């Protein structure tokens, strides 16, 4: 029998980076499928554009930095960043904006800080925020869900509108946004925010056509299904231990708790916790964005704090801020706080006494 001496850690690596990244990509499939069913083929085209841009950008920058491009591309992190960005942006965004956002995410936010493992900010969300503040009009143009749309673009038309801004028959983006009754349709978050700012009450805001579905009175048609599909993927990731439960749980609990406080205090001018959880990107962000191992906190206690503060910021910015959704801003703000959180939540080393009295 051969005995080998080796230094710690003795546990063998069960998964390498590329396996983790591929599992996350796998877990995104239900959500992406839901987006295709509800919002059309746009998301697939955006994903293709983003992935190609990300891979080319990553290879080019690594070439300039004198690193092995093959090694870095094999870990699939650039592909994952591109996919996360592609599912966050509106499906019919002009192609060059997608390329610009992906390039910014990979070249500036990831590679200029030193590549995978060294970036301070979540690349996909930083790219998203860059696009959002640069092109606020285009970045908030979502098509109505296909069940409510008056014109349903097919695959060819989706492609031509991304590339040229018009369908084959010459319909512009504004015409496509019309719902069946000829009213321009906003996203659920946007429509409630607008209604509340015009002094409508929250129950009145829910009368909009976008909320006509049979899932829940406060869930946007189609949007809630996308969120739930990502929830399924996220739970799968927790189940197979690719991500810890701490961040999603803390984030969703904090968001639900804070919105519940507002809602109980004044249910006419604040949206309900169910509304906040099912609309926008809260569920997607909790499982796929905030859990990024590079930019999130690294201790268990720290992860709880990190997640809870993201949840708090999401509700605060959604309720009082200028933009309808806030996951990207919340994640980026808390990315900055990660070194501080990690400093104060260092776990006790075995053999050293903690400051507090130990429990028996």
């Amino acid at each position, binding site marked *: 029998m051969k005995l080998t001496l080796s230094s710690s850690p003795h546990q063998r690596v069960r998964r390498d980076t590329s396996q983790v990244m591929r599992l996350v990509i796998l877990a995104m499939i239900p959500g992406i499928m839901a987006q295709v069913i509800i919002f059309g083929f746009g998301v697939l085209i955006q994903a293709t554009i983003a992935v190609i841009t990300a891979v080319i950008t990553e290879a080019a920058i690594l070439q300039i930095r004198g690193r092995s491009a093959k090694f870095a591309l094999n870990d699939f992190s650039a592909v994952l960043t591109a996919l996360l960005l592609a599912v966050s942006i509106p499906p019919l965004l002009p192609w060059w*904006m997608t390329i610009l956002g992906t390039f910014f995410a990979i070249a500036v936010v990831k590679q200029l800080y030193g590549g995978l493992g060294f970036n301070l900010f979540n690349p996909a969300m930083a790219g998203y925020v*860059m696009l959002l*503040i*640069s*092109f606020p*009009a*285009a970045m908030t143009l979502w098509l109505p869900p296909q069940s409510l749309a008056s014109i349903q673009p097919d695959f060819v038309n989706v492609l031509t509108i991304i590339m040229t801004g018009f369908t084959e028959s010459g319909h512009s983006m504004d015409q496509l946004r019309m719902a069946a009754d000829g009213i321009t349709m906003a996203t659920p978050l946007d429509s409630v925010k607008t209604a509340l700012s015009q002094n409508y009450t929250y129950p009145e805001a829910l009368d909009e056509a976008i909320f006509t579905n049979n899932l829940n009175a406060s869930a946007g048609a189609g949007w809630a299904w996308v969120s739930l599909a990502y929830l399924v993927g996220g739970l799968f990731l927790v189940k197979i231990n690719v991500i810890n439960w701490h961040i999603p749980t803390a984030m969703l609990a904090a968001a639900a708790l804070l919105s519940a406080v507002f809602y109980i205090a004044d249910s006419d001018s604040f949206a309900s916790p169910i509304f906040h959880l099912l609309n926008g990107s809260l569920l997607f962000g909790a499982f796929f964005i905030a859990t990024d191992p590079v930019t999130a906190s690294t201790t268990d206690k720290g992860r709880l704090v990190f997640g809870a503060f993201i949840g708090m910021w999401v509700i605060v910015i959604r309720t009082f801020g200028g933009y309808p959704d806030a996951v990207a801003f919340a994640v980026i703000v808390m990315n900055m706080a990660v070194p501080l959180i990690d400093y104060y939540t260092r776990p006790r080393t075995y053999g050293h006494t903690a400051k507090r009295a130990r429990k028996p």
Partner: protein
Amino acid sequence: MTSYQDLTLQGLWKNNPALVQLLGLCPLLAVTATFINGLGLGIATMLVLIGSNITVSLIRNVVRNEIRIPIFVMIIASFVTIVQLLMNAFTYELYLTLGIFIPLIVTNCAIIGRAEAFASKNAVVPAAYDGLVMGAGFTVVLVVLGGLREMLGNGTLFKGADRLFGEVASNWQLTLFTTEHPFLLAILPPGAFLGMGLIIAFKNAIDATLEARKPNSENIITRARVTTES
């Protein structure tokens, strides 16, 4: 006594107030949304710098060491007031555009830095020349950053040139492209920070290339921010 060639090199490149000393970043980042705004503030800063350097140098043997900083600040404030009134009289629209950042030239550390580090220790002519090249170095960075942001954000260059140069310049504006989706990031403050970072990186890259080419360079310890003598 330092040679004029050395002073020029220091002001424009090696010890550039904006790129190396990183002084005066507030106006630098705030007003450089267009080429002309950058040029206007750059020239105003340069005039103040020349004036304050000359005056500080003239009185350097009279002022007691303990109270020199308040005296310098008062001298700088006087010159800023002069420049502000001149701009109010001759370039009124630019004066309105730059707004609070003209009086804020007083707080530009590059100016009091040069008064303390150079003008208070040197004769009038070198001090005036130092003010000129330091101001020019600052202006070049403002103009490059302003030009970059204006090109990326608006697709134009020299927009509003008539505000600085009068009626002659009213058709100087170059339109590189027109778009219905302006790249707002370049015009907003984050674009200024990103652009500034890229310009500094570009300068450092050039320096590194020059350093690598230089044969048998001796290792001299240099400090990035020179506060005593330069």
